[in-house]
């Protein structure tokens, strides 16, 4: 294979870029994914008050403000050496469930679902939520909007603001719940559970009962045998807010379980000349290129990574769905990238059930929601963002000002896997130079399954769907380019 090095000058600013290189026969020689990296974060944070970090980091990204908010808050708990009261942890987790509810609903109905509900080869103008509603009906559209808004509302009641919460403090939270608010949350959560069940049924009817889709999901170009990573509770069940980081191998055997404070021993980062994005890998296994298999330290995070890395779900309905998914695929681990969509819906159901448990807990209206902080030092915090494991690491000086800040975000954890999935999908669907919108969409589907986030909230207009796919012929000349508008 010829080595292709893309000059840094061609690194695209502003949105993701997939570059596909064809050989003389018009088949895919290689494909690369490039994602812009925000720069200067550490310097930006230096000298700021530690207590401001949950607000500042929630502005990094317009997508996961709640995840950054709590990763930061948990890092500060550790940095100020304070154990938050039990009630405050429950309040944080309840709010976190609200975030999962709206985030996972948005992904399925607006972003990932249209490929299946409307069809992967259908015209781009219909592969969106409007197409989904044309097919599924207006009433369903109203339910989607209603329950996404419920998720937002739960987050807003607890966090002050839905998009950029202000409640997390080192040692607890700034605001508790009263009985009326708890009742309002319970009512919304109950409806969300029904909607999650409905959505899983919809997935069953539209995707799992369609042999073409099942074949596509199980096909080789969409399979990747990597390690899997996610937070688990003490029974090795999936947990979004807290726990130990567990890594399982391709046969679902536990390879590693560690406290986040050891992340820098267990995770290393590889740098490629063609990408700003770093490629994390398991230190104990090592970097062996963009390859899957047991000898490669690349791992996956996010819904499928989490479900693979755990032994089950901690709530009854989600546990039932979990078992059904693994039975359908014939055991663990599931290596099919497109199964991320199914895993995401099981997590949606879990988030609603877990929210009910927390809202029913008598302690949720406790007013003991903050403990006094100790002396400032160093702290590391972890949460499961909707799209994967998110780590914040701060070092504070004696006055509580930030000296050092390091983040490992979910999409970075998935960098190696996403790149390989895009490459393998391109190799699988592009043959003899035949390329059309439907074929390129099938390459994008490999990317979209991960629900990647470019970690930035820039809003410069007109923007366009921030993904560009360029196909080059064997002379490295641009052969076809698609930009999403």
């Amino acid at each position: 294979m010829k080595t292709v090095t893309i000059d840094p000058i061609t690194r695209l600013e502003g949105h993701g870029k997939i570059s596909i290189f064809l050989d003389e026969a018009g088949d895919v020689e290689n494909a690369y994914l490039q994602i812009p990296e925000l720069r200067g974060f550490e310097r930006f944070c230096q000298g700021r008050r530690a207590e401001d970090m949950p607000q500042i980091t929630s502005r990094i990204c317009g997508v996961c403000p709640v995840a950054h908010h709590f990763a930061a808050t948990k890092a500060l708990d550790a940095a100020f050496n304070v154990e938050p009261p039990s009630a405050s942890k429950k309040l944080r987790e309840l709010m976190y469930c609200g975030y999962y509810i709206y985030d996972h609903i948005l992904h399925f109905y607006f972003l990932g679902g249209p490929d299946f509900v409307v069809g992967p080869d259908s015209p781009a103008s219909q592969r969106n939520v409007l197409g989904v509603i044309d097919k599924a009906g207006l009433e369903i559209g109203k339910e989607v909007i209603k329950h996404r808004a419920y998720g937002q509302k739960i987050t807003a009641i607890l966090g002050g603001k839905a998009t950029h919460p202000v409640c997390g403090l080192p040692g607890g939270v700034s605001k508790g719940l009263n009985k009326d608010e708890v009742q309002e949350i319970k009512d919304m959560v109950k409806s969300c559970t029904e909607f999650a069940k409905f959505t899983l049924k919809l997935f069953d009817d539209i995707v799992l009962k369609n042999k073409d889709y099942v074949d596509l999901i199980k096909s080789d170009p969409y399979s990747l045998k990597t390690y899997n990573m996610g937070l688990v509770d003490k029974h090795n069940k999936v947990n979004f807010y807290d726990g130990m980081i567990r890594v399982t191998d391709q046969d679902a055997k536990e390879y590693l379980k560690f406290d986040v404070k050891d992340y820098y021993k267990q995770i290393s980062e590889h740098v490629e000349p063609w990408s700003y994005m770093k490629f994390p890998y398991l230190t104990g296994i090592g970097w062996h290129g963009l390859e899957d298999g047991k000898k490669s330290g690349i791992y996956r995070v996010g819904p499928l990574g989490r479900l693979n890395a755990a032994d089950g779900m901690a709530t009854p309905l989600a546990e039932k769905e979990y078992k059904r998914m693994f039975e359908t695929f014939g055991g663990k681990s599931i290596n099919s990238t497109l199964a991320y969509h199914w895993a995401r819906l099981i997590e949606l159901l879990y988030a609603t059930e877990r929210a009910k448990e927390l809202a029913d807990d008598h302690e949720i209206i406790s007013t003991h929601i903050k403990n006094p902080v100790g002396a400032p030092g160093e702290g590391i915090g972890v949460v499961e963002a909707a799209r994967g494991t998110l780590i914040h690491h701060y070092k504070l000086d004696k006055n509580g000002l930030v000296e050092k800040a390091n983040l490992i975000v979910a999409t970075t954890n998935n960098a190696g896997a996403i790149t390989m999935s895009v490459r393998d999908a391109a190799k699988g669907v592009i043959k003899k130079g035949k390329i059309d919108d439907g074929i390129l969409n099938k390459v994008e589907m490999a990317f979209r399954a991960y629900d990647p986030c470019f970690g930035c909230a820039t809003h410069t207009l007109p923007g366009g769907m921030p993904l560009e796919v360029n196909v080059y012929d064997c002379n490295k000349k641009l052969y076809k380019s698609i930009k999403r508008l």
Partner: protein
Amino acid sequence: MKTVVLGVGNPILKDDGAGIHVIRQLKKYVKDPDVTLDEAMTGGMNLLDMILGYEKAILIDTVKMKGAKTGEVRRFSLRDFPSVHSSNPHDVDLLEAIKLAEKLGETSIPKEIVIVGISVNESQHVFGEQLSEKILKAVPKAVETVLSELKIR
């Protein structure tokens, strides 16, 4: 007329936050109780939520314009754009969100949506709270454009 004016952007990504800077300035001039000023560090469905219930919405944002100099300020109608998307795949285009709301029979969509665009040349990927010199100079121009849109001047 019940109007919402939103500065769209990220205040910690340098020039991307220009719209937010404009809103902060506008607070000095706008005292009309029918006019709501707010900062929108978000897009798509969240942005739609923020404009529902108003008769008119004015969004202040950075815009990439062909043939315009950095820092130029122009008034657009929302329909001038093929898409209004934040730079993120996990988000929905504002136009798509509005079409969705229309389809579902939402009756509180503003009748008029205006975008006051500040011309930038490239997306911002470096953290910082300061605006560049040219964009800083554009802020008072954008403030004037919004005030005349509100018929305050």
